[in-house]
């Protein structure tokens, strides 16, 4: 299979945005029946490369060859006409329509002027059966899990595609079982001759499913490699562009053991909860600690965080902050108590897209100061500059729209927004989600540094390694309930997994 003809070649691709060379003479080649991964740090040009291929952006220079013939792609319909289908990270389907409707929407088979429902349902079933997804196609899409919805999106893409399928981070919201399910579908497609471009941040997944990998860095092509001839450490160092020693230093994140967590509680809750969202919980957060929340997707981690920040209003129990007891709080109150909150869904809940980096950074500080005490422009620029330097946010200017930054850099801006308010409690809900290895290590290092400087941090992550690296104490959740607590000595990946799997060691 490896000596196949290339189906798609992209040659000497250039794409420039104002102030940024997003793609600089990049070549890319996709063979028939291979799964080819695209890797790189944030801002390396992965998304841009995908977007020029799918016609979202137009290239400045370069050629596309499809089966050896030159093609032009200047709009999304051009890409579709050439049989290139894409499934994006966020599912772009209609949750209130049936599975079959979702697969055929916009190209419904007709019979005598009206939609041929029989054929739609029959064909949809056949299509899904081929991929061994056995579900009722007449049921609403929202009746199924995210993973199934993702598969439906993929089968729709497969049906409209003629040989090339792009999967842009399809696994980022799936759990391990669901990922396996997705992979078996991908293998089936591959065996049937489909060429797949697979974008993911998870190294393990790349090694499990891919044949080849193309690495980009800062808009330049680093190279294309057979995955079984490239060691993990080589892959990572090629992505980051740092040598191995430096990389090991980055990965070797250890807590400063001399740090003392005081016994004093910053926050206490008693039977605090909300019906249907999270079971009542008793939680205390000690001053200066990094408290981790571990659990599977949907276990209630995010809900705990949003209750503590007051986004979800509690309907029973109490919360005690700084000696005062409340029956519920709201974001404004939480900010008045100098809490900061980096939400899980960065795009929908964190980033104010069309505003500049400077404005995004000062937003929370300004809102805590109120309407009349407007921060003078000069001071705003100082603050923005300080955090752009401190967090090494990659941008040509602080007046750049935050939309133009890569995911990791956007995350840093949101973090800067809260650091600028000098919070006593910083709540980080999956801060490293969807960002690359290098930026992940940087963020973890930052969490530890902040904690060493006395900040209290509530840290939520799906990646156990991060929790192990950073946390002083971990609360484990399952099924919207706190089921266990691990002290510093007990924190290891195995113990966390065991607690999640078996339930409470010590019901806290």
């Amino acid at each position, binding site marked *: 299979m490896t000596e196949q003809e290339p189906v798609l070649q992209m040659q000497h691709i250039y794409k*420039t945005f104002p102030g940024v060379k997003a793609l600089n*003479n990049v070549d890319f080649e996709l063979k028939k029946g291979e799964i080819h991964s695209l890797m790189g740090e944030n801002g390396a040009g992965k998304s841009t490369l995908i977007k020029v291929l799918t016609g979202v952006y137009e290239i*400045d220079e370069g050629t596309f060859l499809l089966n050896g013939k030159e093609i032009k792609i200047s709009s999304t319909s051009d890409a579709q006409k050439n049989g290139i289908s894409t499934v994006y990270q966020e599912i772009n389907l209609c949750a209130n329509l049936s599975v079959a409707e979702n697969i055929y929407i916009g190209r419904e088979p007709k019979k005598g002027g009206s939609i041929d429902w029989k054929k739609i349902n029959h064909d949809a079933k056949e299509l899904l059966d081929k991929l061994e997804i056995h579900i009722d196609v007449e049921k609403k899409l929202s009746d199924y899990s995210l993973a199934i919805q993702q598969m439906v999106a993929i089968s729709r893409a497969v049906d409209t595609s003629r040989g090339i399928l792009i999967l842009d981070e399809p696994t980022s919201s799936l759990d391990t079982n669901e990922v396996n399910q997705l992979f078996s579908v991908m293998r089936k497609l591959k065996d049937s001759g489909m060429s797949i471009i697979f974008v993911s941040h998870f190294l393990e997944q790349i090694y499990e499913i891919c044949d080849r990998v193309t690495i980009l860095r800062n808009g330049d092509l680093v190279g294309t490699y057979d995955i079984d001839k490239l060691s993990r450490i080589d892959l990572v160092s090629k992505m980051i562009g740092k040598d191995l020693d430096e990389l090991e230093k980055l990965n070797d994140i250890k807590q400063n053991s001399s740090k003392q967590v005081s016994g004093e509680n910053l926050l206490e809750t008693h039977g605090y909860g909300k019906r249907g969202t999270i079971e009542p919980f008793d939680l205390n957060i000690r001053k200066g600690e990094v408290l981790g929340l571990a659990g599977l997707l949907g276990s209630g981690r995010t809900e705990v965080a949003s209750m503590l920040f007051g986004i979800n209003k509690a309907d029973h129990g109490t919360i005690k902050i700084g000696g005062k007891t409340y029956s519920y709080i709201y974001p404004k109150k939480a900010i008045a108590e100098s809490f900061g909150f980096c*939400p899980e869904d960065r795009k*929908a*809940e964190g980033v*104010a897209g069309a505003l500049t980096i400077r404005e995004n950074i000062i*937003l929370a500080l300004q809102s805590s100061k109120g*309407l009349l005490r*407007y921060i003078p422009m000069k001071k705003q620029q100082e603050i923005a500059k300080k955090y752009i330097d401190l967090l090494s946010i990659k941008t040509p200017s602080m007046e750049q729209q935050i939309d133009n930054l890569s995911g990791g850099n956007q995350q840093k801006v949101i973090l800067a927004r809260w650091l600028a308010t000098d919070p006593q409690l910083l709540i980080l809900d999956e801060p490293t989600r969807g960002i690359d290895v290098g930026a992940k290590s940087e963020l973890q290092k930052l969490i530890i540094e902040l904690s060493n400087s006395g900040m209290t941090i509530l840290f939520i992550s799906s990646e156990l390694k991060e929790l192990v690296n950073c946390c002083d104490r971990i609360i484990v959740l399952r099924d919207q309930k706190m089921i266990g607590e691990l002290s510093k000595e007990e924190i290891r990946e195995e113990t966390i997994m065991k607690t999640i799997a078996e339930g409470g060691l010590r019901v806290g």
Partner: protein
Amino acid sequence: MGENKTKTLFSDFTHSKMFWPIVALMALLLFNLFMTPGFFTIQMKDGHLYGSLFDILNHATPLILISLGMTVVIATQGIDISVGAIIAISAVVSATVIVDGGSVLSAVLAGIGSGIVCGIWNGLLVSYIGIQPMVGTLILYIVGRGIAQLITAGQILTFTSPAFVAIGTGYWLVPVACYVAIAIIIIMHLLTRKTSFGLFVESIGVNSTASRYSGINAKRIIFCTYVISGILASIAGILICSNIKSADANNAGLWLELDAILATVIGGTSMNGGRFYLSGTIVGALFIQTLTTTIYSLGVPTEVTLVVKAVIVIAVCLIQTPVFIKMFAKKKPVVQMKPVTESK
């Protein structure tokens, strides 16, 4: 916007949101220079300046005021289609006070007071109760003129109070209305750019969830925008009724809300909310008023007036669409791009 722009380069200006509105206004003025005799003539009479230009400024003031309010509302992803009705209400309220023998000050305060009440009503419906802006303000749009007619018992109120009439027709070198416009423009500028109000409005318009999570009281800010819009509409109502020495519940400010939306859009503020441009809106409002005056002074038959207006407005709006900008800018990037690739 406007404040720092003066020192930037011409190329920055051509890319700014202000560029096309200003070009459109200039083109219209240029057209008048050749086609309308005496358009730019300014006469000095009794120490006052008279001429078509001052007439335009005088008549544009109500539109400028409500367009400024509309811009801030639209920036929050809202819309206020009731401003025309608010104009009618404030016009009859202040006229009633004058007719009943009240002082000018009390008439003005009563007019503005009615605007505040209307603004609070809209703000409550849209922001705190959560009705969609179009629907929420539609209520007052429909009922407003009815309320105004109830106040006047269906009559057109006329008055002669010289002091009150002076607001809309008076001169002090230039029309008094111009001073009102300038004062309001300064206040709006200070409010939106020297307090954090402007930032909060833009941030809510771009992403209201993120704004709320950053601690911004989005409901209160949105509420305030409707109150501001109500106040500005009521001042416009006072100017209009003072100018024609009567308050007509049926016709005062009729269709003006549509011109205000247009002025906002021409000025570069997107209907999707977010960034707003007060200076662009002012140019947009001046453009619309100049256009109206031009059409009248050319003696275009009334039945085609609206068509002419529509065609020109469509052209101005099209020029600003991304598709058109792309078409227009197509040749340039290729030339600019070369050095980038060769430099390596």
